[in-house]
């Protein structure tokens, strides 16, 4: 785009949101200009990231080292397929989410909107920076920045509940990353003398399986954003945030940053061979499976819509962690693909939850009987996204589950197929009742609300992302093609 070299484009993509944030901050007096700045930034960012897609698919790997912070720890960026995919997801959905945010925030007449948009832009910049990180250090930097920039968004409401949610959010994410992830990085740096992401892994070969397993544990739990139980609490707590935040950040950018990091670490730090030798990762397969099921079970018991979606996210994130732990070609591609598939589905679900809140001021599932008649588009989108999350055709989620299942069998973890099956059923059990009740049951007798759909600015994004779920079903091949180099590239 604009004749920029891929390297420049990459750096521009990282920097742009931060510039956008500054612009937004300066435009705080004029909401229209401020929102326009958000949208323009989002569109430009997406354009930049998309313009990288062609070169990267053609084999280019833009690579820039900026400055060496500590010897061996440069601040450096490099685009590889997985990162590109994550950046594509985050930046593309940001456009949609911005439109939605504008509709939501205005309909709600929320205070502190400038802070909201500024933090949002910074968070997106962090996500893109994280996606394009060339080494663990750069990744860690943006990882923390993402946590910090989203903290004000979580506590946006400013009431006691938001404060406590914010505390849990901050302590759990910062805590896990400082106490577990950072030591993991330090150990990695010490053992391999570098933190650069390298195909095939950087850990010295022949490392004792116990040590690899322990190191994996440091990473798996240290990456709190991946919400592996028991470090998942922050996610439901973060649901006190306004819905657009839950939608993009806590269903897409932040949590996907977590599982993306897990995948990245598995592929580029451990390397499949080191990871699988001696069954070092077996425990994580079991653990992720347990989280996957347990979170779904908890979701079943949650009667608050966003809380249920949050636990659903916890469960879905474990798919990716599971895929990473299985570490076969199919599962890694499937895990990467699941990032996309779940993103499209879950953002739609959150959009719907927000639309319901805006239009009907309802947050509890028990209040939603019959709402499908008043908000048919919203609930239809909810239905479509649910199907995608469950993994039903013709929506994207089906393919990632297929690949993860196939990978599990390749690695000899047949039980994982059973886990995936049970999980699908649990997904059905906690998502589809909402749809069924909304469309087919009469409203509760004490429900006399008269309302229609949410504002158009909320509705359009919902339709777009729901359509995306469908499109992704057919686009899965392209994603597969994009991610294929992850597992075919051998250390040269």
């Amino acid at each position: 785009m604009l004749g920029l070299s891929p390297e420049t484009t990459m750096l521009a993509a990282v920097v742009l949101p931060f510039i956008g944030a500054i612009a937004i901050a300066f435009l705080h007096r004029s909401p229209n200009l401020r929102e326009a700045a958000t949208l323009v930034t989002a569109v430009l960012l997406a354009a930049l990231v998309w313009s990288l897609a062609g070169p990267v698919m053609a084999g280019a790997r833009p690579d820039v080292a900026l400055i060496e912070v500590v010897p061996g720890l440069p601040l450096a960026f490099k685009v590889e397929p997985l990162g590109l995919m994550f950046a594509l997801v985050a930046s593309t959905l940001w456009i949609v989410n911005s439109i939605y945010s504008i509709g939501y925030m205005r309909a709600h007449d929320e205070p502190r909107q400038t802070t909201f948009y500024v933090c949002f832009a910074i968070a997106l910049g962090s996500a893109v920076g994280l996606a394009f990180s060339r080494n663990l250090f750069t990744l860690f930097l943006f990882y923390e920045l993402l946590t910090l920039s989203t903290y004000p968004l979580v506590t946006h409401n400013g009431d006691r509940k938001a404060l406590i949610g914010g505390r849990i959010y901050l302590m759990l994410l910062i805590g896990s990353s400082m106490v577990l992830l950072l030591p993991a990085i330090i150990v990695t740096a010490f053992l391999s003398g570098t933190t650069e992401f390298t195909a095939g892994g950087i850990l010295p070969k022949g490392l004792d399986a116990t040590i690899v397993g322990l190191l994996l544990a440091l990473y798996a739990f240290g990456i709190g954003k991946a919400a592996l139980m028991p470090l998942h609490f922050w996610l439901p707590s973060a649901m006190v945030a306004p819905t657009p935040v839950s939608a993009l950040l806590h269903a897409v950018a932040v949590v996907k940053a977590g599982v993306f990091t897990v995948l990245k670490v598995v592929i580029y730090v451990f390397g499949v061979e080191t990871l699988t030798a001696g069954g070092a990762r077996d425990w994580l397969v079991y653990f992720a499976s347990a989280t996957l099921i347990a979170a779904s079970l908890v979701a079943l018991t949650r009667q608050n819509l966003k809380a249920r979606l949050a636990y659903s996210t916890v469960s879905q994130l474990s798919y990716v962690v599971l895929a990473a732990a299985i570490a076969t070609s199919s599962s890694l591609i499937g895990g990467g693909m699941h990032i996309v598939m779940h993103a499209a589905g879950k953002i739609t679900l959150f959009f719907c939850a927000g639309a319901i809140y805006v239009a009907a001021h309802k947050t509890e599932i028990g209040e939603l009987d019959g709402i499908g008649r008043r908000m048919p588009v919203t609930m239809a989108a909810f239905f479509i996204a649910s199907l995608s999350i469950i993994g039903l055709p013709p929506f994207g989620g089906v393919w990632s589950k297929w690949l993860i299942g196939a990978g599990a069998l390749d690695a000899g973890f047949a039980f994982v197929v059973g886990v995936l099956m049970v999980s699908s059923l649990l997904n059905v059990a906690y998502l589809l009742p909402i749809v069924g009740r909304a469309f087919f049951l009469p409203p509760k007798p004490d429900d006399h609300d008269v309302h229609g759909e949410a504002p158009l600015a909320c509705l359009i994004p919902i339709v777009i992302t729901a359509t995306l779920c469908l499109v992704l079903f057919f686009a899965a091949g392209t994603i597969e093609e994009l991610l294929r180099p992850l597992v075919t590239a051998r250390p040269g």
Partner: protein
Amino acid sequence: MIGEMSPGLILVLGAVLVPFLKGQARAAWMLALPIIGLMQLLSLPMGDLGQTTLAGVPLTTMRVDGLSWLFGFVFLFAAFIGILYNLYHDDPLQHAAGLVYAGSAIGAVFAGDLVTFFLYWEGTAIASVFLIWASGTERAYRAGMRYLIIQIGSGVILLAGILIHHHATGSLAFTKFGLDAPGAMLILLAIGIKCAFPLLGSWLPDAYPQATPGGTVLLSAFTTKLAIYALARAFPGTGILIPIGLVMAVVPLIYAMMENDLRRTLAYTLNNQLGFMVVAVGIGTEMAISGAAAQAFVHVVYKSLLFMAIGAVLYRTGTAEASALGGLRATMPLTAALCIIGGLSIASPLLGGFVAKSLILSAAMKDGYFWVWLILLGASAGAFVATAIKIPYAAFFAADSGKRPEEAPKPMLAAMSLAALASLIVGLWPSLLYGALPFPMTYDAYTLEHVVTQLQLMAFATLAMVVMVALGLYPFERPGQLLGADWLYRGLGYRLLRWIEAAANAAWTSIVGGVTSASGATVAWARSLHGPDGLFGRTWPTGTMALWTTVMLGAYLILAFV
């Protein structure tokens, strides 16, 4: 025409337009879809078509051969009459769901590989639940939820089976598996659920009676027959199917007789008829497979007809319970007549069942399965009682309920007439059906021997009924819920789940409580030490500090000199 697109997909895509159309246009559009689908089917050559790749998986979306052609054809027909019947209501959601459901079933029939098959298989599960939910009651919602879980459960089991099969063989072809093929057990289990195998089929009588009147008609046509198709495709000649089929042919009959809800009664007899087909697949000879296909074909027609008739009764009276019905022939004569035709179609000469079921019996006899033959023969007599006699008798004769509803609406009558006509055509010109069977054959159903024995069966069964009525032993139905295999999950399982939930909650509460109090205690302890008044937090007197200085010095000196 439209390339090599599956006729099923035409219905599915066509459904998208339905919510945007109104009135006559919508009716016309919906009715046109199965016709377009049929034209598409007729225009396609035999063979593997519509090959494409999705997500790196090579797919054969359209396979036309004898078996799939026959099922596809009858499904399109069932879709047409189902849609026609459903024109009595104006609920676009139900219409669309019906189309997607029928389309998915048709698509699944033509699926040439396991993945395509799975995709459509799940499609039928999802779309069909809407036909149940559309009743709009809490009961229907709950039944729908159970139905959905079980149907999707079947889907995920199928998926697991496919994954294992693919992993072991690298093949995704949807052809005959032996039971010892990897993943085959799971695939059989998945099909078995949809086919309402013993213990796996409780969803059928549970869900069908909760659907809307028109919804049940569609439900009865597709899901189970799709499963029969899959069985015939993947497991012909699998011996275990014979006992399974026999149990299916017998046990549900007893339930059918006990049952008060006529739609549920039909669901049980449907299950019984499936038993015949499962046995036939289990026998697995060319004749048996053809018999299963023929039986499925005819069964779709007459079971739809029966469900339509009872649906009309339900629609007009608000109930389908035997204990609340009776004597409706006075004001619904056409429905009554069509219902009787539907009932007779199960066995009577001139109608469909007569020409189809005998294939299965003959196949059993030909291979010397004596007991199989005997039991099926008995079961067909029982089925005649439970279907052809009980249903019309309870609704239109029996004790007069005093209800005098209107005759069924025109679309319903039209749909029923079409079904009756189809049954008649097959009955009159069986060669039409025989020629279309997977293994085309010439078989003479109308031998004197066959006609007489079959009529004997019907007459003596009727005689038994008459005697029982005269003795006051029949009818005996009362409203109620019959305990079946679903007790395992609706009763036992549910209670178990509640117990687990309570236990988990208690455990969780105590864990949270423990952690909360422990962390509270920790903070309190830290505050007592580190707070402004604590040992560390308060300002020490200067003397204390001086003392510490001395202590430190002493310590260093000791360390240095010891």
